[in-house]
């Protein structure tokens, strides 16, 4: 009779099990370990990436290309998002990827630099503002000489007029000649802010054009950020039809940017080819003022972030730009083949307080909360390890201006650090007392328990919540995390129909108890005036319940202020309404935490030059695509 071997006595089985276990462990420790094996003596590439702070390069100016580098090659960018279509102004399409791609194809009056500032892109100089006697404002624009489309056509003011006419086509005009609320407009758009103030467009010459606004619009530099060519469509309806696939009857649409649209293999990739007629970039971040070095760009749609990093490490892509992840820097930052960098963008994370909450309606409680939050600990614990010193260590203290913008002022310096003593003092002043377990309670309002919610599944945000939750416990607050997965958070919590009804009616209607504290990001930009819409009384974008007549009156005054310095100061004053108690007891409902960094990695072993000056708004990796260059 044949004996039956037992697993424990079978050496081969044990050896196999050991080999499999080793493979699992080796894979789990990450592929960085192969760097240590290959480069003995290197103290950067170790398998213990979690124990050391990865080195992150703050890059606002891209590295200069090497003189002996080649031109040519196709830059491959692995990205998870694929545009549903290329019609950016279609309200159903608001993905960042669409605007990022179009940044390589079209240019406008002004571009946005890596420092989140406007710079003249197609313009030869800054626009000249003339305040007319009837208080209308005329802005005179002068285009650069030698501007050219990819088909060789000169880019002139006729193209600018054409662009405006497409926007205005079919609109029911007001008496003053403006397009009003957009009723009747054929061109698909969800945002005509600023365009709706234009009453006249006059072409003076091929390079000179004037636009008259019925009142000064502070964000005028953000207008006409993309000029269209007349071949985009004979009318607005045709433009709407051609933009989604970026083609007309003659083929792909012409470009004024460094790239021309190539092919789109849905679900797989999108390609662009170099525009050899490109007139050169005027960006202060670009080092190359001619045509792009690379022959083209291919965007491979790689859905998974880890798969993107693997594609980068496998050499199948040279650049990725993805949501910041804790493992991102660990897997790439310690490998000298990659450059991982970030810049502070105009998007900022914040804690927004519901002024209709029974506790938070008391300004003393809000002050106590502000004193109890230690933004620098959040920065040190979460953001500095990933992004170095590209973000201010003390966090953010302004919701209108970002830290890398000139007019920035930190209006929450009073609350810097964790001042538990002051926090508790404020609570006691408000009538709260320690319930015995460290959490305070009020005789009438009850236990000081507040829910904070955000988009669940976002690792960084969830860690941020937990950090602040621990901080607040020391100051007598019981913070309960109340997240909803993904984008559904907004419509279920702060922007739920009942919640907005309560916020806009000061609690007379709706349900003010749906949320207490919200954590998400607002998108800013070089013109901060749009932020005011989040705080205007009765506005559907204002979930906080803030309703201040002075603020509502002041916001349009700021927007109408012509002088840049005066306008900047005006916005700073507006910010104090929301981030301090300097202008009333209904303030301090916004606690900005930090700017969101734009985070990208590229294969520096293949690239001798990189041209990324990203901001999280509408720039992206192709902003300075002219600077990307492969090593020879």
């Amino acid at each position, binding site marked *: 009779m044949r004996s039956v071997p037992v697993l424990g006595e079978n050496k081969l089985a044990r050896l196999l099990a050991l080999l499999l276990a080793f493979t699992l462990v080796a894979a789990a420790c990450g592929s960085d370990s192969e760097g240590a094996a290959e480069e003995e003596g290197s103290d950067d590439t170790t398998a213990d990436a979690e124990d050391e702070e990865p080195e992150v390069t703050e890059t606002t100016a891209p590295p200069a290309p090497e003189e002996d580098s080649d031109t040519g090659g196709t830059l491959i960018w692995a990205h998870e998002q694929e545009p549903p279509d*290329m019609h950016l102004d279609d309200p159903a399409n608001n993905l960042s990827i669409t605007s990022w791609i179009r940044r390589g194809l079209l240019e406008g009056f002004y571009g946005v630099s890596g420092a989140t500032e406007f710079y003249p892109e197609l313009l030869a100089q800054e626009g000249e503002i003339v305040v007319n006697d009837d208080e209308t404002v005329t802005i005179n624009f002068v285009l650069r000489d030698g501007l050219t489309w990819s088909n060789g056509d000169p880019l002139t003011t006729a193209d600018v007029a054409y662009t405006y006419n497409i926007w205005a086509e079919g609109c029911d005009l007001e008496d003053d000649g403006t397009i009003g609320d957009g009723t009747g407009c054929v061109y698909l758009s969800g945002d005509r802010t600023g365009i709706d103030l234009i009453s006249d467009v006059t072409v003076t010459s091929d390079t000179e054009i004037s636009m008259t606004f019925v009142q000064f619009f502070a964000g005028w530099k953000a207008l006409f950020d993309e000029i269209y060519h007349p071949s985009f469509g004979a009318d607005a309806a045709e433009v709407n039809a051609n933009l989604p696939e970026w083609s007309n009857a003659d083929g792909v649409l012409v470009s004024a940017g460094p790239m021309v649209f190539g092919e789109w293999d849905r679900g797989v990739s999108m390609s662009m080819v170099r525009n050899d007629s490109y007139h050169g970039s005027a960006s202060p971040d670009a080092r190359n003022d001619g045509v792009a070095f690379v022959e083209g760009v291919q965007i491979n749609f790689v859905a998974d972030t880890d798969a993107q990093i693997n594609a980068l490490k*496998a050499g199948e892509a040279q650049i990725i730009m993805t949501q910041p992840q804790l493992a991102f820097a660990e897997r790439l930052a310690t490998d000298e083949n990659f450059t991982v960098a970030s810049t502070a963008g105009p998007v900022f994370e914040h804690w927004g307080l519901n002024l209709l909450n029974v506790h938070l309606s008391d300004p003393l409680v809000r002050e106590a909360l502000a004193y109890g939050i230690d933004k620098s600990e959040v920065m040190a614990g979460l953001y500095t390890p990933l992004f170095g010193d590209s973000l201010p260590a003390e966090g953010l203290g302004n919701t209108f201006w970002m830290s890398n913008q000139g007019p920035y002022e930190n209006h929450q310096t009073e609350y810097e650090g964790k001042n538990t003593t002051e926090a508790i003092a404020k609570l006691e002043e408000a009538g709260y007392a320690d319930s015995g377990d460290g959490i305070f309670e009020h005789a009438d309002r009850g236990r000081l328990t507040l829910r904070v919610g955000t988009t669940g599944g976002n690792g960084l945000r969830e860690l941020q919540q937990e950090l602040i939750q621990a901080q607040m416990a020391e100051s007598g607050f019981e913070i309960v995390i109340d997240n909803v997965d993904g984008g559904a958070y907004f419509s279920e919590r702060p922007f739920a129909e009942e919640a907005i009804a309560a916020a806009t009616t000061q609690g007379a209607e709706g349900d003010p108890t749906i949320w207490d504290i919200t954590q998400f990001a607002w998108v800013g930009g070089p013109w901060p005036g749009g932020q005011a819409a989040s705080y205007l009384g009765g506005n559907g974008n204002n979930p906080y319940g803030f309703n201040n007549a002075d603020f509502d009156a002041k916001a349009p005054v700021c927007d109408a202020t012509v002088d840049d310095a005066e306008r900047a100061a005006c916005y700073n004053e507006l910010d104090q309404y929301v981030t301090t108690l300097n202008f009333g007891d209904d303030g301090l409902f916004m606690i900005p935490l930090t700017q969101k960094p734009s985070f990208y990695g590229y294969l520096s072993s293949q690239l001798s030059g990189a041209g990324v000056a990203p901001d999280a708004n509408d720039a992206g990796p192709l902003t300075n695509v002219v600077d990307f260059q492969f090593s020879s």
Partner: protein
Amino acid sequence: MFAFALRRLLASIPILFVATFGVFWATASVTNPLDALATCNTCDQTAYDRIIDLYELDKPIPTRYLSWLGDVATGDFGTATSQGERPVSEIFWERGRNTMLLALPAFALLMVFGVAAGTYSALRQYSAGDYAVTSMSYFGLAMPTFFFGLLLQVVMAIWFPRWTGWKPFWSSGMHLESFGQYLSSVTLPVLTLMFVLLAGDSRFIRAAVLDIKSADHIRTARAKGLSESKVIRRHIFRNAMIPAVTVWSLNASALFGGSLITETVFSWPGFGRLIIDGINAADLDVVMIVTVTIALLVVIMNLLADIAYGFLDPRVRYD
């Protein structure tokens, strides 16, 4: 048999109604396309109106479902709002082809290796080979698909080229420039799909063969003097195929309906990614076409399995 098949198909219609309505209602309830405008400071009412009109958000869910059903009955599967408002039928064939390019080789290899591994393991019970197959099975059953896929990417697309200087596989993406490129890009996702499913299939077939191996008729066949290979081929193998067909029908509907995780990890633009993108974008027409496809595949594969039983087991009668 034809009448049997027809009866089965007709009986599946109520199931399809329930399945499609359930998915439609669930997706419409938990997703809201207007969420995309929640934090847009400068979007005006036309933005909201456009989205409400595009997604018919002003109508109740049952009305929208009936509207969709009516369109489908006339051959109009709608437009994909998440895909530039292209006709859903156009996207369906495109993505279906891509899924077939992945699923067909995976299924074929799964059938071959599943039978081979399970049969070998059963016939060589308690041998080193049996333990090896068993260990691999446990490994595959315990291994999350996404992790195995990422592991393959790291080992085969990053480490292997660094060790050998040869890069035979793409880490992700579908490349159809040539047959060689197709093989390079499909290998890792096929291995991922196959390995995870093979783990279960080989165990199942092993159990079936073990059960049959000890049957009386097998002992009789040997006693009659049949060679071992004939015993295995004519008696053991054929009888083991009956439960194998059951497992294959389940695998086929899962593979051909799109493998969400594998397609996401390897960026393979098939049904799996299509439905994920559709759910994220609240694109109901896309979600429904994939749902209907999967539901039909389950029905058809089960029907084919039942028909196959009749060929494999003469005792099976259709009535």
